[in-house]
């Protein structure tokens, strides 16, 4: 085996689990995750010479993964024509009801240390449609660089803001219903 093949074999052993878990987290589908990670390694194999060791192998592979996920998204959801907000706002754009005014009364600063809360949060996240969830996750993974996410996924800037806005409204609603017991 040449040097390239040896390295790739080692990388498959070392990084498959991290990449698969990340891919599954982003795509919420096991088969899609396996397909995409396989493509990551094929790309790494083909562009091996362009890896210059400037970043760690893991960082490089993760960057390829993010690209592949964006590409997957682009192909699957070619058109995001409208992000409806009529569940929350009336025709004039005012809040439909007063739920939003109720405080969360959450004194506990470290909600994420609470396993029950984490469970509710995970369930609420899973309820978001992938069409919105993937860009939201990518947005955070790319350290909130909106232009980068737009460029990779082909979403317009306006639509990315709307997706974030809509996704967050729905998450908030779900958390209020299932955790803060407001709705």
């Amino acid at each position, binding site marked *: *085996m040449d040097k390239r*093949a040896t390295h*790739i*074999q080692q990388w*498959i*052993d070392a990084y*498959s*689990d*991290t990449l*698969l*878990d*990340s891919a*599954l*987290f982003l795509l919420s589908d*096991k088969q899609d995750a*396996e397909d995409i*990670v*396989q493509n990551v*390694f*094929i790309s790494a*194999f083909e562009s091996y010479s362009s890896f210059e060791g400037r970043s760690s192998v893991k960082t490089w592979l993760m960057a390829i993964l993010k690209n592949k996920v964006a590409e997957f998204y682009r192909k699957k959801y070619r058109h995001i024509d409208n992000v409806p*907000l009529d569940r*929350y*706002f009336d025709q*004039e*754009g*005012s*809040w439909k009801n*007063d739920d*939003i*005014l*109720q*405080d*969360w009364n*959450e004194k506990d600063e470290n*909600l*994420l240390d609470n396993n029950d809360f984490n469970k509710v*949060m995970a369930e609420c*996240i899973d309820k978001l449609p992938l069409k919105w969830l993937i860009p*939201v*996750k990518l947005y*955070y*993974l790319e350290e*909130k660089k*909106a232009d980068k996410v737009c460029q990779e996924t082909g979403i317009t*800037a306006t639509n990315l*803001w*709307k997706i*974030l*806005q809509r996704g*967050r*409204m729905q*998450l*908030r609603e779900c*958390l209020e219903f299932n955790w803060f017991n407001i709705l």
Partner: protein
Amino acid sequence: MVRRLIHILFMPCRQATLLIEKRNAGSITSFQKIRLSAHLMICKWCNAYNRKINVMEDLMKKIFTQDAPEKFNKTDLQLFKDKLKEKLK
């Protein structure tokens, strides 16, 4: 009545909540920033939303940037590795 006034004078809440996203991403223009502050000052609905969003922003950032939960079992993982290694020899 108040809502109607807010809508006319300081953009609709639908727009203000979008600007909150832009602000949190650091992509807001100075003009938009002023409009948003004015809106938040007089609109108790968006003001309440803004407070909740700040909590959520923190939660989401932590959840979405931490290591993904381990969900693949050992057998599947080994099978995946073996197949792929055979392919990329």
